[in-house]
């Protein structure tokens, strides 16, 4: 796969003096779903806004679908669709009017059939003649997505598409994103819902204080940084962890009924059998055992706080 967006040495210092991006380098592959994660103020929106032409970069270059976003901005922008983080709509316009307007603004000849398809896909067709101010928040967000898709972009930016959206609509959006990707659209989204990135993304970038600290395949990231936790439910409660088990750094929980062991799924492969063997030698019986893998959220928190891949699963 080839890169459809190439970002090199991109920096942004706002007029206030705040450095929102510190030399970002990133390649987005054609046809992938890329999730950008990071805490509030990390620079996600700034990065997207620069690529879309809303914010001027301080230095660096961005190539979108072969076009420099500054030198060849018209060609680049025709390929890009943006659903911004904030809900900004023309309250007094009708749905169909505002979506048709967007298509024209982006330099495309009228195509009522395409507009109808977009509105139907987003369940907006019945509401096409309603004024936007009469729609619910979730519907307004759909209108913004319809506007972004009106000119048939090949690169779509979704800046927190599911913030403040109910579970059902979130599922709908995930389905829509997958459908779009099948039609060849590259999607870059930001989110604070880790499950969303876990559900949708092929690759994940983590940004913190204006720096991209990790870019990885989602599965590789989870494998690489994933912590596993083994929980043993004991037959008889213990009052303390026996000294003979010290090397595993176990934790005693549930009033002495559970032993918890946190380990690295890759590095510590032999330690679990050894632990079980030692327990048998000590005559400590258990009724049940269970292992769980840390979620992306936990990985993400551990990355942002100090960058060390440690931290127990919980």
């Amino acid at each position, binding site marked *: 796969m080839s890169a459809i967006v190439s970002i090199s040495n991109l920096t942004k210092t706002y007029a206030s003096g705040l450095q929102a991006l510190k030399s970002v380098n990133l390649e987005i592959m054609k046809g992938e779903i890329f999730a950008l994660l990071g805490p509030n103020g990390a620079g996600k929106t700034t990065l997207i806004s620069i690529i879309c032409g809303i914010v001027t970069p301080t230095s660096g270059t961005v190539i979108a679908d072969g076009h420099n976003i500054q030198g060849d*901005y018209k060609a680049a922008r025709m390929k890009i669709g*943006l659903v911004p983080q904030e809900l*900004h709509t023309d309250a*007094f316009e009708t749905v169909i009017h505002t979506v048709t*307007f967007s298509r024209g*603004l*982006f330099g495309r*000849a009228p195509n009522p059939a395409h507009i109808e398809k977009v509105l139907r896909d987003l369940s907006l067709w019945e509401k096409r003649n309603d004024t936007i101010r009469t729609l619910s928040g979730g519907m307004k967000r759909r209108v913004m997505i319809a506007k972004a898709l009106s000119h048939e972009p090949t690169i779509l930016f979704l800046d927190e598409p599911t913030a403040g959206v109910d579970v059902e609509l979130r599922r709908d959006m995930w389905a829509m994103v997958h459908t779009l990707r099948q039609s060849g659209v590259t999607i870059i989204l930001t989110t604070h819902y880790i499950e969303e990135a876990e559900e949708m993304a092929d690759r994940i970038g983590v940004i913190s204080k204006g720096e991209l600290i990790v870019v990885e395949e989602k599965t590789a990231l989870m494998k690489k940084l994933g912590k596993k936790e083994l929980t043993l439910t004991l037959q008889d409660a213990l009052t303390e962890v026996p000294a003979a088990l010290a090397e595993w750094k176990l934790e005693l929980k549930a009033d002495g009924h559970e032993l918890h062991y946190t380990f690295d799924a890759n590095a510590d492969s032999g330690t679990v059998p050894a632990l079980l063997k030692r327990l048998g030698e000590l005559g400590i019986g258990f009724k049940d055992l269970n292992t769980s893998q840390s979620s992306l959220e936990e990985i993400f928190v551990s990355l942002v706080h100090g960058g060390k891949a440690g931290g127990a699963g919980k």
Partner: protein
Amino acid sequence: MSNLSFNSHGVLAIYRFEMARFMRTIWQSLVAPVITTSLYFIVFGSAIGSRMSEVGGVPYGAFIVPGLIMMALFQESLFNGSFGIYFPKFTGTIYELLSAPISSFEAVLAYVGAAATKSVVLGLVILATASLFVPLHIAHPFLMTGYLVLIAVTFSLFGFILGVWANSFEQLNVVPMLIMTPLTFLGGAFYSIEMLPPAWRVVTLFNPVVYIIDCFRWSFFDMADVNVALSFGLTVGFFVACLIAVSIIFKTGWHLKN
């Protein structure tokens, strides 16, 4: 599409969008100025006009028509020109314009074109209204129309700059209310500057609006207080100054981009 090719669909989309808003509110847009103009005719034309009958051979009722049209044109152009760009800034929908494959020239063309179209329509409606009250003979109809369009475009452009500059509705109103209104009232809409004492006449000549109204009145009655070529030159100069200001605004992203 290379950067050289013209985004005609984009220009048309903005123009239509702006005109659609005008059509939705056409009642307020046209009726209010027509009523205002009619009131001016009743108050100035009839009440005062009955006492001063003629100015330089022109019946007073007719004499005030060009000034009244210009007053309405200033207000409408400034309002339409500024509102068209201020409103998206205010609601946040400007993100779409900034991310669209449209050049600054194309955007200005569309916004200012729509604003000026509305003003010209309004100017012509007022002219039609006025002709119901007073018999009008226009000496230079083509020059009159051309000048009407030039003023509509220039003040729409000026309004556009104000709309970009303004950060609040109060600021949006500062120039129209605090600068344009007094300048227009003191700009010879209702009197000839020949009627003023000599000292005041000199002071008046520092008011740019005097030249605009005088130039427009010349196209109606073929008579002017100041040199028509000078007035016309000043108008074009102001137009060019606005053009330069707009191109600087877009080059620097001033008040539009971070």
